[in-house]
């Protein structure tokens, strides 16, 4: 029992890379890269799958804007031996505070603006969804909407 208890309780902090490709409003086509930081039992190699609960941070440039997000993630995933990236997320979710800057041909009015808000993400193997709400924090002309609802679909986490 003591050995089992030690195996469960002795944890180490793991930093694992996460990536995603998605189409979303308002970023349109984007590629994200970030990190999940979580404690897992120190002796577990997580080559089959492990649960990760912890901090997530991600930067995501897209064709119509860029996003910076930080928050909490809970996921079941696996990484290849000696790889620093989660190559498989079987199921997971995250809640993030995000900062978005739009550019180029963005559908928003004005096309270039800065927004801040929240995003919820739900991931299954090979597919990820997100929904959120943003509030404009940059100045705009009178009558411009303050809130934007966001949604996206893609691959990765």
């Amino acid at each position: 029992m003591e050995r089992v208890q030690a195996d469960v309780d002795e944890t180490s902090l793991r930093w694992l890379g996460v990536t995603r490709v998605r189409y979303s409003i308002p970023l349109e086509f984007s590629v994200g890269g970030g990190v999940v930081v979580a404690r897992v039992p120190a002796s577990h190699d997580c080559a089959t799958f492990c649960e990760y609960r912890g901090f997530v941070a991600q930067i995501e440039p897209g064709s119509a804007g860029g996003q910076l997000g930080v928050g909490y993630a809970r996921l079941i995933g696996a990484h290849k031996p000696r790889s620093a990236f989660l190559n498989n997320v079987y199921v997971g979710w995250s809640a993030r505070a995000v900062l978005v800057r739009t550019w180029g041909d963005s559908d928003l009015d004005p096309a270039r603006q800065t927004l801040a808000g929240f995003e919820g993400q739900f991931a299954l193997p090979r597919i990820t969804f997100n929904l959120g709400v943003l509030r404009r924090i940059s100045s705009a002309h009178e009558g411009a909407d303050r809130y934007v609802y966001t949604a996206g679909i893609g691959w990765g986490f």
Partner: protein
Amino acid sequence: MPASARPRSARFAVVLAVAAVFLGLGGAGAAPGLETDQFFAWGRPLKDMTGVLNARVNLELERLVAELNRDGRDRPCQKVRFRFFKRHRMLFFDGFETWSVNSPLVSRSPSGADEMREFKQHYLYGGTSSVFDTGRWMPPSPTVEVNGVRLGTDKLTHLLGTAWYYHRWYRKARSRGVPLAEAEDRAVRRGLGHEITILGRAVSGVLSLADLEANYEGMWFYEHLCAGDDPNIVYDEGVWRLRRPFDLRDYVTPEWDESYQPNIYIRRKWPKVRQRMLRYCRMLEHPQVRAMREAYAERDRVTETEKLIEEMVVAGKLPDPSQFTIESVCREAAD
């Protein structure tokens, strides 16, 4: 935001939300139905993990008891059951299974990079499913040995996770005054319905009778966790205590080994699985496999799940599982 962009955004969000709910439901079903391949473990040495896995479950039971004592009061048994279930449930996976596929204390097959590579080539279900089979997207469960029976680690999820739902259906029927035997029957039939539809056959093309066996035993684990004549946990003189430690030997039977208790396959999948099973015909004479199957035969009994499956077969609702046994496959090939 221009007027044209707003409806587009809203429509996109609605479509996504609906898709997420549907896929989420599909994923929820598929995840506990992780596939396993005991044939791969044939002839490979495995240490008996009864003590280690018992210790893992008992550690969680002791922590549950400590948590209940921190609250410092009596609780209805159903709440205690739910707290135990919640303690190890992780999204759609189960904590005991996640631990057992990772811990260096657990002897399992496949294990290690070389054996994993070999497993990928020989996996019974490799290349047998469509891209849309969500079961294929999930990792296969390795094999462990418990009390002389080889089983997939997914059975821990079935015994201690999926079985929670069986028990809830059972309790619900009992609370409505349904007699014990009928309540049990209703729960098992409903469980079979789930395995045939969202949890198994409809998703992966495989109806695992071994999964059903583990679900059934788990229903009784939850029933006796804190109630009945011989509960695991009791509230006695103002203190919760672990009265009877959990023991997997009370639940595991040879029917949990999917190389012994055949799965039922859909017509489309079976020829591909059969082709892969044929590789193991010569292994039937391997000393470890022979000894194991002889020991299984001695312990074999007619289970409640088998009675129900037999009834469904007679009614023409399920194909006869005996056609999917390794013996049947090898006999046909020899003829």
